[in-house]
């Protein structure tokens, strides 16, 4: 699959079930080309990290995977993204349904200005879940899933804005879990958090990996090496190298990857 090019052997195709696959994705913002011919296969129920210097296109790429770029005026995607083998850029794709299946956690915690309970119940309510008991159940299991339940169970009616930054980010994760996605996209989820909160989120990701396919964008290479099994290195809008995390960090094949993971630039 995909067109053969010079760097083809640098892009590993993981073994086993593939959840998401992109083929020749190009992203344009008006005249500017943010991504060039990105082809990558994301394995199911693994954590895939995307690293690279600021502005390399890794976040833009993540936003291609659930069509969040649709919301930006002048953004255009050429190429294709397959979720379980089906194109998400197909005309017939229901974008809202897609984003339900491919959830996203953003860089800065962004709770809605409503109660903790209503934040978590927001997604299920959107998708038609009614009834007190059912919602209570979803809220509890989602908050447990995001390792936040014990801290907030006595104040579910309190405003989500009163939580600390790390708690707010875990609430964002709980909110996504509540819609039962298959894929979790995380866009630098720890960049606004302190080391303790970061550690908790990383632990959580490793737990979530059992049930979800996770793609995380991070500018923190230690984070990538701690949590991920596969790593992709982006530079100037291109995917330079993609492979098993230990190989990328210990024995990169491309000179530029080597320079970056050794901290020679970025």
């Amino acid at each position, binding site marked *: 699959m995909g067109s053969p090019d010079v760097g083809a052997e640098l892009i590993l195709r993981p073994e086993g079930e593939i959840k998401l696959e992109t083929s020749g994705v190009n992203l344009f913002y008006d005249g500017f080309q943010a991504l060039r011919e990105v082809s990558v296969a994301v394995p199911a129920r693994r954590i895939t990290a995307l690293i690279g210097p600021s502005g390399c296109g890794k976040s833009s790429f993540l936003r291609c995977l*659930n069509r*969040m770029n649709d*919301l930006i*005026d002048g953004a255009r995607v050429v190429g294709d993204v397959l979720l379980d083998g089906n194109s998400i850029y197909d005309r017939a794709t229901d974008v*809202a*349904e*897609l*984003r*339900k*299946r491919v*959830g*996203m956690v*953003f860089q*800065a915690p*962004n*709770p*809605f*200005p409503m109660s903790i309970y209503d934040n978590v119940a*927001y*997604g299920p309510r*959107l*998708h038609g879940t009614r009834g007190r008991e059912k919602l209570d159940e979803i809220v509890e299991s989602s908050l447990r899933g995001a390792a936040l339940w014990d801290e907030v169970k006595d104040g579910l009616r309190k405003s989500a*804005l009163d939580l600390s930054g790390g708690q707010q980010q875990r609430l*964002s994760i709980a*909110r*996504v879990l509540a*819609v039962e996605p298959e894929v979790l996209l995380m866009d630098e989820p720890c960049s606004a958090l302190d080391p303790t909160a970061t550690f908790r989120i990383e632990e959580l990701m490793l737990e979530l990996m059992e049930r979800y396919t996770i793609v995380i964008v991070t500018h923190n290479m230690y984070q990538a090496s701690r949590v991920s099994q596969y790593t992709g290195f982006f530079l100037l809008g291109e995917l330079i190298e993609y492979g098993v995390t230990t190989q990328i960090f210990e024995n990169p094949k491309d000179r530029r990857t080597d320079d970056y993971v050794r901290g020679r630039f970025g």
Partner: protein
Amino acid sequence: MRTVQRLRPRATQAVVFAGLWAAAAVVVLPVVGILALMFIRGGRALSWELLSSAEEGLLPAIVGTMCLVALTALIAAPLGIAAAVYLSEYARSGPLVRLIRLAIVNLAGVPSVVYGLFGLGLFVMLLAFGRCLLAGACTLALLVLPLVITASEEALRQVPGRLREASFGLGATRWQTVRRVVLPNALPGMMTGLILSVGRAAGETAPILFTAAFISLTKPFPSSALDPIEALPFKLYYMATEAHGVSEEVKWATAAALVMLVLAMNLAAVVIRARLRGARRW
């Protein structure tokens, strides 16, 4: 030369500061002046009896103006808010949106007497409402529409984009996002803008002159939206130009009543804004 340059910033600062202070004072003085003048000249006539009497007093005009204001708000709010939501949440920038914005800016610049004549032509005659509360409110609604749209758009802009992203990211459609996240958070700002806008409409004479207002001899209060009404600005205009035997004091007191009504509305808007601003942080 050097010493002069070193002294200059301070001197400049003093001059600029004095200038700014004077500018601020110029804004405040007329307000205080107008209020003082009205109360000094009309204070003695401004009694509960004047305000509450239907035959001799201002009650029909006060009731009429309040009806006008309420109906204007009722018509302008849904139109203005819907237009603002379309412009800021749905429309993609392009020639159409530029044209709409140009129209809004120009609409805001049309003199109020032109609205009055337009209202006469459209609502009173063409649509055959007759001179009535409804025709006046429709005319005033057109007048305040640009203000309501602009204020509502501003309120929508205040809602952070990351809340919209969060909602879309959970699989919400655009309408679900607008309805559940954007509107609830923009509503306080919209209400403030709406009250300030219709507060302006409450004091307008020209738009209701041909469309709604009359001086009642037999029927002080409207029984439906299709009846003509008395209104404070019109009553004032009539007293000042045509009426005989109305004392100067009563004229001033009428002016004071109108200004107080408008000020009360502005104050309400400020209070609502302060309340809700305190309740919301992001």
